[in-house]
Every structure is written in structure tokens, then in C-alpha cells.
């Protein structure tokens, strides 16, 4: 392990690492455009120039291997001058259309200019004209003039998706990023190029002009789109209802997790958040008529003891909620599995199982059971459905038959659907981004979802309503929040033994069979 000095600090860096990695490890940030830890080294942007003693020329930190005794300066006059020069070249033909650029506020041309530039511009020539605002696929807009040709996106489509859509055509200052004419960028991971684009060349169609990024709040979470459980950041705005028609979520971004999704996420997961702000069930309904939580809970609690109950839980619920279901409904017939057709999958991130917590449900002992069949056969007379739309799963007719046969039909879910309107009681549930909890992904990794913002209007977290119900049916559980529920289950469930939220942390914790 070579020891080197960067900005006067001694650093032991792993063999084979580079100066930029060694610096990062020591908390010293070296500016970069083309360097991305998930991609091959291109070394073309030259912004990461540093001074290495005994070397007459500045060296690029991204491709300079660490060596024993190496002395590196990232902030010497020479290094600063090098960065300033590179920045001025990068901005020479840049259109400087920041006022109308979605990247403003998270643009590394802006950031580095403020940090390392601050020169008086000398470029007085006609800038090279290229194409602007080109929709190159369902999710991505290209602005060739803003592009600094760092080739991150080219390397992404070459090395990660291996789809090869991008090319840099022509040469010299006529070089431009593009696709072969007539082709589109529509692979399953296309929007990642927006994240890795350090400037405003590749921007998101969906997010286009919706909000300035400095109005965004961010919360870490986990995508619920499939069993992979890609780590995400949720970007949202709560106090500016004039933006985005009042929808809170603006966009999802992948959050780095080396063991789950690295830097990436699929487009389906990224853009699959519309249901959280639209089509929500926001009021308690009794036979389709607005009611209230107190009424609903009292009525359900009073009728439950006389009924044979079946519960269709869901692998969309958190481990904590599934645990409570098992506790509270211990004398009912319970399942979490419904006959869902497998979705699309690949050998990268996308899993055919579109539920984020299937393994969690299995580990809590949720067995396969055809509860709908039981209900139709009259073996149960009350049914509680968490989240699922039975019309979609079993057909409208079956739903109507159930609705007429059952003495009590409770639906708790996030969105309006035929099931919510057919149920005796429809209870508005919080979406996964509105609550705390954990999911176990298909590789046995337990990960936390975090409350980005409170439940919408009257909706409530399922764990909260379950605790409320437990109290009303005289099976109280003395938990106050998901963390306490988790500690409770960690005390009894061997697979989660001795685990707590702190140990799970932001990157999850691997559990094994």
C-alpha cells in the first residue's frame, strides 16, 4: 500500500489506485468531468490536472497511479492555473444559456467556475453552432452546444448497457455528441446518462422546466419498482404548488450503493412515481361515500370478532407492516402472494418480480394461499386487501362476486381503483415514500425506505392503522413507530436477529438464508 502526500496530507492508498481515488478517500475533492468511477478512464477533459513533484508537466489525477513517496499538490499555483485554463477552454464555445438550462444549480461548469475559474473571459469570437433541444429518446433531451464532449454517456452506452447508441462525430471543435440519424436512445437504462452528464447537454424530458433544482428537497429511499431495491434519492417540492401542478415528487435519482445498483437505476423505476401524487385515495370511503377514520376503525373492529377473516397482504408493504399483520391477524388466513404475471427482466438490475419485499414476506412466513377462492367458496366472510386491485388480478366479475358475498370487505391502499370502490371500507394508505420501514430485496439485503414527506391528506401508514386496529380489537402492541416494530421483530425473528435501523444504515445490510 503506497503512501503518498496530497496537499500536505499523508495518505495510504491501495495498490493500483489513482491520485483522484486516493484524494477522494482522504476527503480531498479533485474536479472532474470525464472521470466517473463507474466507467473506464477517458482522460480527455483535463480538469483534474494536479501538480506532481518532480514532474515538469501537470498530470491528470484520474490516470496517475499512486506511487510510494509521491507528492501531489491540487491547489498549487500551477495546478490552479491549469484548471483555470481548462475551464476557459471548455467554456469558450459553451453557449452560457444557464438562465434557460435545467442543469443550472447542479452544473459542474457553473460550480467549477465559481470554485476554480473566476477569470475574465477572453473569448470574443463567434461560437460554434450546433443543435439544441433535440429529443433523442423518450426521456432524454440533447443540447450539443452545451456538451463538453467528456464522453461519459458514450462510455455508459458502450460499457454499461452495451447498446452503443451514442457517438461523437466529426473532430476538432466541430466534434459533436449524437446518435446515428433516425436512431433513438430508448434502452431500459437510458436516463442514467442524464445523471452522469456533468453539464446541461443531456437533460430529462420529464423534469424539463418543472423546477429549478435549488427548490428541490431530497430524501434517501429505495425504489419499490422491483425486487432489486435500487437505492434512490427522492427529489421533491412541498411548498411551491404552482410548480408541477402541485405534485410533490419532481424526480427520482439513483443513489450510489456498490452492492445493489452502483450508480444506476432503470427508466421504469425512475419514472414510475406518478401514482404517488396522482389518482390517490385521499379519504376514507364507506361503500364509496366519504367517511372518517374513527368511524371506519370502530366499525371494522366491532365486526371483525364475529367474522372469519382472510387477509391478502402485499409484498409492497414493509417488513414492519407485514410483521404487524401477522401479529394482529394471527387467527386469520393470510397470504401476501397474489397471482401476478412476471414482468420484464434482464441480467443487470431489472427483476421480473415487481415487488420490493417478496423475500421479506416469505421470511416472515407468509405462505401462498388462494384466499379469493376461499372467499368465493364461502369459507371466509371477511376480506382485507392491502393495496392490490382485485379487478386487475382476478377480473371485474370476481370482484363483484366477492363484493356481494363478503360481509366485510376492507381495502387499504394508496390509489383509487375498482377494488377501492367495491369495498365496504376503503382506507387511504400512505405510499412507501411517505413512511419509514424496510424491504428485503431479492438478494437478501434489507434496506430502509425513508419518509420523504408526510402521507397525503387523510392517508395513513399501514403500520399506524394496524396498531390502531390492534388496540381496538384488544390485541394492543406497544410500538410507537416502525423502528420499535422492527426491534420487536428483530427480537423474535431469527433472520433479523439483533438487527436495528442503525446497522442497516443508508446502504442496507446483507441477510442470508
Amino acid at each position, binding site marked *: 500500500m503506497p503512501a503518498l502526500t496530497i496537499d500536505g496530507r499523508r495518505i495510504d492508498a491501495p495498490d493500483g489506485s489513482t491520485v483522484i481515488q486516493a484524494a477522494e478517500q482522504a476527503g480531498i475533492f479533485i474536479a472532474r468531468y470525464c472521470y466517473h468511477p463507474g466507467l473506464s*478512464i477517458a*482522460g*480527455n*477533459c*483535463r*480538469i483534474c*490536472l494536479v501538480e506532481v513533484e518532480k514532474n*515538469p*508537466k*501537470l498530470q*491528470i489525477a484520474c*490516470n496517475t*497511479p499512486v506511487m510510494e513517496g509521491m507528492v501531489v499538490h491540487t491547489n498549487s499555483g500551477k495546478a490552479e492555473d*491549469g484548471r483555470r*485554463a*481548462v475551464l*476557459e*477552454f*471548455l467554456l*469558450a*464555445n459553451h453557449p452560457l444559456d444557464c438562465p434557460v438550462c435545467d442543469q443550472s444549480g447542479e452544473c459542474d461548469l457553473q460550480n467549477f467556475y465559481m470554485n476554480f475559474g473566476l477569470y475574465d473571459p*477572453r*473569448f*470574443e*469570437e*463567434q461560437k*460554434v453552432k450546433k443543435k439544441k433541444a433535440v429529443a433523442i429518446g423518450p426521456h432524454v433531451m440533447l443540447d450539443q452546444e452545451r456538451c*463538453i*464532449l467528456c464522453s461519459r454517456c458514450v462510455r455508459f452506452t*458502450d460499457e454499461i448497457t452495451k*447498446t*452503443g*447508441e*451514442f*457517438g*461523437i*462525430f*466529426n*473532430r*476538432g*471543435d*466541430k*466534434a459533436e455528441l*449524437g*446518435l*446515428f*440519424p*433516425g*436512431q433513438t436512445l430508448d434502452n431500459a437504462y437510458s436516463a442514467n446518462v442524464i445523471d452522469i452528464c456533468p453539464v446541461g447537454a443531456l437533460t430529462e424530458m420529464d423534469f424539463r422546466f418543472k423546477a429549478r433544482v435549488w427548490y428541490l428537497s431530497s430524501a434517501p429511499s429505495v425504489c419499490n419498482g422491483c425486487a432489486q431495491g435500487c437505492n434512490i434519492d427522492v427529489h421533491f417540492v412541498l411548498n411551491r404548488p404552482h410548480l408541477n401542478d402541485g405534485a410533490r415528487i419532481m424526480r427520482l435519482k439513483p443513489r450510489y450503493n456498490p452492492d445493489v445498483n452502483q450508480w444506476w437505476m432503470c427508466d421504469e423505476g425512475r419514472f414510475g412515481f406518478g401514482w404517488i401524487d396522482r389518482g390517490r385515495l385521499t379519504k376514507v370511503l364507506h361503500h364509496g361515500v366519504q367517511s372518517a377514520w374513527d368511524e371506519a376503525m370502530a366499525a371494522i373492529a366491532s365486526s371483525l370478532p364475529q367474522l372469519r377473516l382472510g387477509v391478502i397482504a402485499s409484498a409492497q408493504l414493509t417488513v414492519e407492516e407485514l410483521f404487524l399483520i401477522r401479529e394482529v391477524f394471527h387467527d386469520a388466513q393470510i397470504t401476501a402472494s397474489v397471482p401476478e404475471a412476471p414482468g420484464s427482466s434482464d441480467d443487470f438490475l431489472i427483476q421480473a418480480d415487481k415487488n420490493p419485499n417478496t423475500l421479506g414476506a416469505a421470511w416472515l412466513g407468509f405462505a401462498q394461499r388462494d384466499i379469493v377462492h376461499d372467499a368465493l367458496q364461502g369459507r371466509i366472510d371477511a376480506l382485507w386487501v392491502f393495496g392490490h386491485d382485485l379487478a386487475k388480478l382476478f377480473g371485474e366479475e370476481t370482484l363483484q362476486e366477492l363484493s356481494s358475498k363478503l360481509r366485510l370487505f376492507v381495502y387499504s391502499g394508496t390509489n383509487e381503483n375498482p377494488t377501492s370502490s367495491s369495498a365496504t371500507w376503503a382506507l387511504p394508505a400512505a405510499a412507501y415514500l411517505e413512511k419509514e420501514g424496510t424491504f428485503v430485496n431479492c438478494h437478501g439485503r434489507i434496506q430502509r425506505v425513508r419518509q420523504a414527506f408526510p402521507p397525503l391528506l387523510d392517508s395513513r401508514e399501514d403500520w399506524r392503522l394496524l396498531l390502531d386496529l390492534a388496540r381496538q380489537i384488544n390485541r394492543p402492541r406497544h410500538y410507537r413507530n416502525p423502528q420499535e416494530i422492527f426491534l420487536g421483530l428483530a427480537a423474535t425473528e431469527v433472520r433479523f436477529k439483533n438487527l436495528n435501523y442503525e446497522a442497516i444504515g443508508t446502504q442496507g445490510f446483507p441477510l442470508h438464508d
Partner: protein
Amino acid sequence: MTLEELEPKAREMIGRYEQPRAAALPLLWLVQDNLGHISSEAEFWIGKQLAMSVAHVRELVSFYTMFRMKPAGRRELRVCTSLPCQLRGARDVLARIETHFKIRPGETTPDGELTLSEVECLCACELAPMAQLDEHFIGPLDGDTLGLLLRGSRIPDPQPFLSTGGPVISSRFRYPDGAWFETYLADGGYQSAGKALLHMTPDQIIEQVSAANLRGLGGAGFPAGRKWSFVPKSSPKPRYLVVNADEGEPGTFKDRYILERDPHALLEGMLIAARAIGSHKAYVYIRGEYIRPARRFARAVEEAYANGWLGKNIQGSSFDLDVVIHRGAGAYICGEETALLTSLEGGKGFPRLKPPFPAISGLFQSPTIVNNVETLACLPFILRHGPERFAALGTLRQGGTRLFSVGGHVSRPGLYEAPAGVSLRELIYNHAQGIRNGQRLKAVIPGGISAKVLTAEEIDVAMDFDSLTAAGTMAGSAGVIVMDESTCMLEALLAASRFFAHESCGQCSPCREGTGWIHRIVRRIWAGKGKPQDLDHLLAIAGDMEGKTICVFADAAAWPVQSYITKFRSEFEEHVHTGRCPASREAVACRP
């Protein structure tokens, strides 16, 4: 001809390479040569043949200037306007051609007969002002020749001056149609290769070449023997010899003559080098415009195979060597050795990050030595006459002679073999017979357009690598561009800066943006719209480009700016402040 019909040929081409993608340029040439241009359909077809995305095929088509996406005329006229041709009237030649055919560069005559283009240096500055008509280099396009061209008459083969007296390389240049196998053999050829293969160890060869002080004559001047010694002695990977015949440095035209007139000398040198580094496969990367040189060299390769000097078990030595000729397609940067390797592997000519160096990981990630044509052509002499004799021809640290390409305003442009340490004055005044029309010398670029300019007072300098470095410039490719007192240095810088802006590969930000920026400022001054701060800005931009990129192209682009402006500052200032050209006799702007 259809794409389907090309498939058998395509498969054969792919079979020559270790990786299919390396056949990208050959396939693009196959399509263009047979179908006239490269259609979108053909791009998809090539992508399919090579398992490469069509976007990457388009990258190549758009990067290499010789590929065209639209049909061209029946004949193609490529007029060189690079500095050496510009000095000898290329602008007027182009203007006359435009007027005569009523087309501009990039256009085709309405009858589909002729496509005109304006190109950077074709490395035939001894013919300046010159052009390429289909595969033929024609020039000088003054008076009669231009008339013949405009009338469509047959143009006789040019007869420029070139050394034929050796001692090292030029003696067989006396055969205008080339020294073919029998001639070469009768002249003592292949004796050195035989010695190397049958009687010498690789280490002995390296020792001799090092003792001869042979330097890399492509321009970098790195000791050849030392370069070879970097190749790992034991490696599970194959080792490659790559010949850099991508001659492109404006002002230089030496390798073309070796390929055309003495191709077996190169082949023999390749055998010696291959033996020294343990390589059994050699690639010869020849610039795309060198059609006749490539054809002649290919003929020599065939002869060598037929006579047992290539292939398996050469001359019973149990040493094998196969040679593949690879054609470039119009990109100066591919003369940079790592860009050449990237290009050879089927990419745009992007220079590579170092480390790793090619000797460790070069072509197809295997140990590779890239040597220039002239460097290799010196090897037979060294092994035949001994390193001492070669070393004695040159200076203390650079043995042998060099082929000096002398062009511009000299009385007798040509290719001169002279000792490595010959003085610049001697080259200009003795060899090239002084400045034409009795004019006075103003400035000389001693080593190709990348080298810093010397003033008339600075020509008492030896032309070897070390002396010219000490003089603040470089020997480079030994392309000597001579400028007389009528030369406008701003116009010279315009040509140089246009060249670098045109040829920057665009990979590194400082070079991509800097070369274009410099060119635009120079063009603006030239158009009479200079600003007082321009000269200082030019120097600052050039300084900012230096030493900050993957290869030295950006440095090479900076040096003309720095040296022309510094050494001829008052002339530039007059341009800026008056908008007029002091060099022009009429004392008006050098260009309207």
C-alpha cells in the same frame, strides 16, 4: 456491385486482424472504392460485419476526411493549401480552378465530372503548389501544368529533385519506377536481414542499433535501440511491429519516396526490427492519400513472400513474419503513435493515455513497437556496414544521415539526404540552391510545421535533434519550410493555425477548443479586424494549451503561434493596428 457481393471480401479482410473491429477502415474503403460512397445502409452493413454499433461506424466516417457519405464526381481533385503549397501560390491555383470549373471546394461540376476539395498537406511539398487528381500527385501547378489540368489533358509525371547518392537511404531513389526485388538483391539487399535472422540474437541487434545512435526519424528522435529494449522479453502475448507510414507533417515528403522507390529497404528493416523485438506480425499503416506508394509497397511485399523473405521459416531461419498493409483515411493525428494504434484497431484516431506505453500494451493490448519508415530503412545499412560507420556519418548522439524535405521559397525544392548534423544554411544554400528569384531569406521552419520558426539570422545551426532543441526549436520530421522576405508571417500563421484546427482530433478540451480559438483570432486579424489585445491573448491561449493534453499535438499547435508572434512581433502589431500587411509590396492588407 452490392453490399452482399462484398461480403466474401469483407470476411477475408476481417480474417487478417486479431479483432474484427480492426477491419473497420478496410471495410469502409472496400465500400467506398466499390460503391463510390458510404451510404447509411453500408454503415449498418459494416456495423453488422464487425459487431459494432452504427453510431461508432458513423464516428469513423465523420472523423476521417477521405470518407464521403454522398457520391462524388467521376474524378476528384484535391488541392493542397497547406503552408508549403501556400508559399508557392496555392491560393491562386485554387482560385483559378474554382473560376474555371465554376465550383467551390466541396462541390461537384453539374455534369458530375469533377469534385473539388481543398485539403491540408498531402506531403508532396517538392511539387508545390500541388494537388491530387484521383490517385495521382500533380504539380507544380504553375503555368503549363495548371493549363493542362484545366484543359483536362494528360499531365506528365513530375520530376522534382531528389538525392540519389546515398549513402544510407537514397541510393536506390535513382530508379524512378522503384527498385524491385531483383534490383534490390543485386544491390546487396537482404544481406543484413539474413544476418539478423540467421546469425544474430535479438540483443546483438539491439546493441548494434544502439551503438549506431539511430534515432526515431518520425520526429521524436527517441533512440531506436532503447525503444526496442522496453519490450518485455517474455510475454505470453504476441508482440507487434507497427510501421508508421502515416506521413503527414506539413513540409515532409520522405517516407513516400522510400515506399515508392525503395520498398524492400523498408521491408528488410522491418525484418531486422521484428527479429530484434520477437514480433511475427507487422502492420504497415500508410496514409490514405498515398495510393501509389501503398500499391508499390504492396508489390514489394508480394515479391518478398514469393522469394521467401516473408511468411513462415524465412530463409530457413525458423523465424516467421507476416505483413499486413493498413490504409489510413485522412487524419494527421494518426501519425502520433498511439493514435495510429487506436486507428488501426478501428477507432477514431485518438491518442492514448500513457501509461501504459505501447511497448508494454499497444496494439490489441499487446507489446508493440511503432517505428517510422525512414528509421527502419536505415537498419540494413547499419547491419551491413557496422554501427560505427553509421554513427560516424552523424553527430555524437545521432548517427547516420537524414532525408531532408526542403520546400517553400527555395530555388530547388526537393528531398536531400545529408548527414544528421548538416547545417541549415548548407541545406538551404548548397543543397536547395538558395532562395528563389534572388530574394532574401526571412524565416525557416526546420522540422515540419509543428517546429518553432527560425529567423534568417538563426540558420547557422546543425540539423540534428539535439542541436535544434538547443536552438529552441526541433528537428521533427526534417521538413524544412523556407520563407523569403515577401512572406506575410500572419498569413503563414493563418495556414498553420488552420491546419491545427482542422486536424485536432477533438479529444482533449484544451486542444479541441484552443486550436479553433487561435485560428479564429488569427483569421480575424488577417481580415483586418484585429484588436490590440489579440496578440497577447494568442500567446496566452497557446501557453494555456501547452503540456496539458494527452499527446503533444496541442504543444505543436502552440509553438508556431508563440514563435511567429515573438520573433516577428512588429509585423503582427502592424497588422493589428493598421489592418494592413507590411510584407506585401503594395502595403495593403495581405488579403482583401
